């Protein structure tokens, strides 16, 4: 503006001043944009927290109902002292995760357990079934050759027994004759904690040769086969419920932390915003006053 009135010698100096002023104005603008976006993020994380809190209460209720399924199946293996056969090393690992992220380390924890196992010797006899896109995403690149099945569309809705039954059917029809195996899942402990845990899987042969099978009455091959199929489905169901509950609780904490961090950022940004605004006003005043003094 001034530049246009007095072109020439002082033009450059004015331009520099103008530029500086513009830049300050720009930072003010930039800060306010940033502030706005952080506020929006906070709103989003807060509402995600509310949603997962609601989902969590439901998941916990359903988990209580699902617990006997898993515990019953595990009890059978413990009482009968089923062990993996020595001569057959084929193992199956099932990674229980879901499709959705933004929930802390639930998925990486499960995947890490499997990754550690796969990096040990004897990994060539291990196959993996990934339940949920997250574990697939983590294991795919390095251990893609071990994956024999991937299940997705998990985590959007609470798991049902039908889901587990479908998965069990996929395990049984996969054509992979494992001797033993593990379902790796997140065991829910409390709202703020969960831990990776596993449920055992055995082949029918291993169960039939278990030393203390005799404590169970009227078992024949047919009954054992039926029971094995059912217990596979129920253990998968239980692991899915535990996983879903841990995921929701973990998402709740993660989103709570995210909101808190956003809050801190908002405080800092507001402070910088106000300081910058103050600085701009002060400088403008100085310019006006010194301009007026120069005229006298």
């Amino acid at each position, binding site marked *: 503006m001034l530049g246009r009135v007095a072109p020439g010698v002082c033009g450059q100096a004015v331009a520099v001043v103008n530029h500086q002023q513009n830049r300050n104005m720009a930072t003010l603008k930039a800060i306010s944009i940033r502030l706005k976006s952080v506020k929006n993020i906070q709103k989003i994380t807060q509402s995600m927290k509310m949603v997962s809190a609601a989902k969590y209460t439901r998941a916990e209720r359903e988990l209580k109902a699902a617990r006997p399924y898993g515990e019953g199946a595990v009890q059978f293996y413990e009482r009968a002292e089923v062990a993996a056969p020595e001569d057959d090393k084929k193992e199956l690992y099932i990674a229980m995760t879901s499709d959705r992220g933004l929930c802390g380390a639930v998925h990486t924890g499960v995947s890490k357990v499997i990754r550690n196992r796969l990096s040990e010797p004897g990994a060539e006899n291990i196959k993996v079934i990934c339940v949920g896109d997250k574990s697939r995403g983590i294991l795919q690149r390095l251990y893609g050759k071990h994956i024999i099945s991937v299940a997705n569309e998990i985590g959007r809705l609470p798991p049902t027994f039908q889901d587990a039954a479908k998965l069990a059917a*996929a395990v049984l029809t996969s054509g992979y004759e494992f001797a033993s195996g593990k379902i790796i899942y997140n065991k829910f402990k409390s709202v703020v904690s969960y831990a990776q845990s596993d449920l055992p899987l055995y082949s029918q042969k291993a169960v039939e040769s278990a030393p203390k099978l005799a404590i169970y009455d009227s078992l024949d091959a047919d009954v054992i086969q039926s029971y094995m199929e059912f217990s596979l489905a129920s253990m998968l169901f239980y692991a899915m419920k535990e996983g879903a509950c841990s995921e929701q609780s973990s998402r709740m904490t993660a989103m709570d932390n995210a909101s808190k961090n956003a809050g801190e950022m908002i405080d800092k940004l507001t402070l910088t915003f106000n300081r910058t605004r103050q600085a701009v006003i002060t400088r403008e005043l100085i310019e006006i006053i010194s301009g007026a003094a120069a005229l006298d």
Partner: protein
Amino acid sequence: MSAWRQVGLNYINYSNIAAKVLRRSLKPELRAEAMKRDESHVRITPWADGRPAHLKQAAAKIKVCFE
């Protein structure tokens, strides 16, 4: 061997069919809630050599079991 196993069903299919029949025979006010548990959205893809493989055949196999 039981008749259902001779037909090629396993216990999971067998008990699922039984559960489905039971759900359908419930009183209407209870049925609505029970029918929600009848749904399943999981999609399963077989993999081989680090990529999805022989999709149709296996998917069909699983599907047959549930219809």
